[in-house]
């Protein structure tokens, strides 16, 4: 044992951050805006393990962009123990965050390309991190045309409704929002995302890259549509939802093929995904 040994930190220790704001997106989805911390710096597409003291810990993708300043946002659907406990919390309370984990989106590869974002339901959350990064003043010039196709089951289920309006106003992107089922006040498009994609997004596939996220079945059919439109597997990027615990590539839960989703993922190109066992 040498005298000058490095100080090893316990990688499982969470950082406690206060909730600055809670936005109710839908009846079961809330966005938590935490006051960020300069020691927690991340890339779009990464995720963090959120710790609710006394309840548990769960992985959530970071929906804010590093260009948004010192905030950290998570959009969380109420579905189990930890998420229910989170939904009961109030502004000012503290929650633990550790990370960031994962590979994030391949930003260098996406530069100088036109980008087609396809999101379904709460799948827009991880995409939003990259969208706002790309749309930020310091980075907009690095990317070509932007097309955002977003759909949900019904108008009630659309998330980030407050931001969709801002995006719609911008001149440097196309936004198309659709719902599977409209309601009496809905004036927008009605149709399933993979369908609307084929019918309304008329683009020349070679000049574009597509980033997809949503429920597994929507991803499956969206990729099918994209391939029919002429996209090659390496032009399609998605982010996998996987049961994860440690986030450090040690507990074994997210192991799929030779990858640990928490380390080499959760962002994968369809080219790589095709060669992985279908255990996700």
């Amino acid at each position, binding site marked *: *044992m040498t005298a000058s040994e490095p100080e*090893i*930190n*316990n*990688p*499982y*220790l*969470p950082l*406690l951050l206060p909730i600055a704001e809670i936005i109710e997106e839908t009846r079961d989805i809330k966005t938590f805006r935490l006051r960020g911390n300069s020691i927690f710096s991340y890339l779009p597409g990464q995720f963090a393990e959120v*710790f609710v*003291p*006394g*309840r*548990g*810990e*769960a992985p959530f993708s970071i929906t804010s962009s590093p260009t948004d300043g010192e905030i950290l946002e998570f959009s969380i659907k109420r*579905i*189990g123990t930890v*998420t229910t406990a989170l939904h009961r919390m109030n502004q000012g309370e*503290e929650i*633990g965050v550790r990370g960031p984990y994962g590979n994030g989106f391949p930003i260098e590869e996406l530069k100088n390309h036109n980008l087609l974002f396809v999101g379904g339901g709460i799948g827009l959350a991880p995409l939003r991190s990259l969208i706002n990064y790309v749309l930020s003043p310091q980075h907009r010039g690095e990317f070509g045309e932007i097309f955002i196709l977003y759909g949900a089951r019904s108008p009630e289920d659309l998330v980030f409704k407050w931001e969709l309006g801002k995006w719609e106003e911008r001149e440097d992107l196309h936004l198309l929002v659709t719902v599977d089922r409209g309601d009496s006040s809905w004036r927008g498009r009605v149709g399933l995302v993979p369908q609307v994609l084929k019918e309304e997004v008329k683009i020349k596939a070679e000049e574009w890259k597509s980033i997809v996220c949503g429920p*597994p079945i929507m991803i499956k059919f969206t990729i099918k549509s994209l391939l029919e439109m002429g996209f090659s597997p390496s032009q399609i990027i998605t982010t996998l*939802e996987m*049961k994860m*615990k*440690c986030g*450090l*590539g*040690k*507990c*074994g*839960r997210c*192991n*799929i*093929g*030779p990858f640990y989703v928490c*380390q080499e993922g959760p962002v994968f190109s369809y080219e790589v995904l095709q060669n992985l*066992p*279908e*255990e*996700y």
Partner: protein
Amino acid sequence: MRKAMNEGLIAKEKWWEWVEDKKDRVFLTERAKSRYGKWFPREVKVVKNGKEILLPPGEEVYRYFWTGEKWKIEEGEISASSAFLFSLPCEARAIIEVTDKIFLNNPIDKNYWLRRKSLSLGIMACLQPEPTCFCSSVGGGPFWRDEGALFLVPREDDIYIQGEGELFSFSEGVEEKIKEEIQALQKKAESVLPSLLPSYFPQELYRYFEDEEWNELSWHCINCGACTFLCPTCYCFDLNVEGKLKGFQLRSWDSCMFPKFTLHASFHNPRPTGKERVRQRVMHKFSYFPEREGNFACVGCGVCVEKCPVNWDIREAIERMVEKIDRFRT
């Protein structure tokens, strides 16, 4: 190119002097005890394998409590005083070539690191492999040794040692005759063991993921966790929070054999039946881990084969897949 390792001979009396002095800090694995128990005082602590010491079945990762106004998080206390673990080569290899690679890298797991740096390994040669042993087929061997550890071959009245360790401070030189004797013992032990798996095995096995052979292979496994808990290399764990206003994050052993291992909160389960889980265990040990780290995540100790309640034999699974691969390989 391995550098030449120190060699030496320890007289029986010197060994006993040393081990009596250290006996409170000596761990012995069950298998090493059954072979070499008479070389150790009765008081030494017996463990199943290195995993029990380095990655205990349950441990606090950190503690938290509510002060009345806010939450506080504290690291648990790990007391790791220097200790020695004497085991067979397979058990030592499980630490050096599998769990060390996972827990000492990317990032370093602090608790494991604290225990590991104060644990010196003593690898005792395996002179008589059991019928369930297959260490040589996965890259190990009955006389496997490592530069950072001490390798011992107890003889009648002395012990041949090789490698690194404080025992070298009172060892004598080794005659050529004895070195030859040791080599002959090694050859004898190796002769009863199967040959090394082909180098193309991890890559080829990956292509047989969808093969129907898995249906037949996995049929009689009852998906308990015996193999994973007794295995010296299986390291999967669970993290759970225990305690409301005051508690800790608990790390406990988990098993890929349990259905809840991959169950999502939405009730979607990518590995819904035993077949997927059995396949995962074999693929992880013989394809995924080797692709990442360069060696199998199985050391061929044979404990799982010995203890399986329904005689599910991982060697048979491997043999069948090798046969299939060789048959269709161009």
